[in-house]
C-alpha cells in the first residue's frame, strides 16, 4: 500500500518537470538569440514521459526520460527594422512556441498534478482506516 504513495509522487514529479518546461517555453516566447548571443532563436522544449520509476524502471510509476526539442520550423515575422532581421528578406525568426498550445498544456499538467494529489489523499485514508483496526483494542490497555 505504501508503494502507491511512491507511484503518485513520481507522477507529481513528472508533471512538475513538464510544467517547468512549459514555463520556460512561455518565458522564451520572443527570444531571438541563444545564451551565447548568437542569432539562433530559442527552440520549443517538451518533456518525454515513460512508465517506470526513475530509480528502477521495472517498478510502476512514471518518469521523464528526456527533455527533447521540437523540430518544427521557426515562426517568421516580417520586420526589417529588427536587429536580427535577415538583410536580404527582412524576415525575423522567432521561437516556434505557440502561446495557446502552451497554456492548454499547462492546464492539463496542473489537472494531472491535482489528480495525483487526490490519489495520495485516498491512499492515506485507506492506510488510516486500516490503522483503526488496532485503535479499538488499544483504547483500553488495562483490561484484556
Amino acid at each position, binding site marked *: *500500500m505504501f*508503494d*502507491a504513495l511512491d*507511484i*503518485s509522487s*513520481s*507522477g507529481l514529479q*513528472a*508533471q512538475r518537470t*513538464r510544467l517547468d518546461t512549459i514555463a520556460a517555453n512561455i518565458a522564451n516566447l520572443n527570444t531571438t538569440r541563444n545564451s551565447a548571443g548568437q542569432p539562433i532563436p530559442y527552440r520549443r522544449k517538451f518533456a*518525454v*514521459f*515513460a*512508465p517506470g520509476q526513475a530509480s528502477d524502471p521495472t517498478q*510502476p*510509476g*512514471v518518469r521523464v526520460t528526456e527533455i527533447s526539442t521540437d523540430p518544427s520550423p521557426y515562426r517568421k515575422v516580417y520586420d526589417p527594422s529588427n536587429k536580427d532581421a535577415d538583410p536580404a528578406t527582412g524576415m525575423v525568426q522567432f521561437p516556434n512556441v505557440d502561446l495557446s498550445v502552451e497554456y492548454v498544456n499547462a492546464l*492539463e*499538467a496542473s*489537472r*494531472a498534478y491535482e*489528480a*495525483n494529489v*487526490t*490519489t495520495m489523499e*485516498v*491512499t492515506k*485514508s*485507506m492506510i488510516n*482506516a*486500516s490503522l*483503526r*483496526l488496532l485503535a*479499538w*483494542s488499544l483504547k*483500553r490497555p488495562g*483490561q*484484556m
Partner: protein
Amino acid sequence: MFFDQLLNQTNGPLLERVLSFTAARHKLLAENIANADTPDYRQKDLSVDAFNQMLQQRAAESDSAPPGTVGFDDIDEAITYPNNGILAHDGNNVAMEQLVSDQAKNALMHNVIVELLRQQFQQLQAALKDHVS
C-alpha cells in the same frame, strides 16, 4: 490448529482477501493516473467481476464445510487491459474520469471492509472478555 479454527470462524479470512485485492487494485489505479500523459501507455486494471465470482464460489464452499477450514488466500487476481474506447494522439488510452471514480469506489469499499473486519474482531473479544464492557 485449534486457534486457527477459532479465529477464522467469522468472515475474517474472506474480508482479509478482499482487503488485499482492493489494496492491489488501488496501486494499479494510482499507476494509471500517474501515467496519464505517457505516450503509448495502456491502462491496466484488475477484473473485479472475475474476482468476485471466485470469491462467491469459495464462500459457498466454506458455508458447507466446517468453520475455519476453507482458506481464501489462493484466489488470484488477473491484470486486464480494459478497452475504454479512448485513444489520444500520443497512443495513451487513460480515461481520467473513470479512473478517479473507480478509485473512489475502491477506497470506499476498502474502508467499509476494514470497519466490518474490526467489528468481527471486536465481537470475538467481547465473547472472550466474559462481561459486558
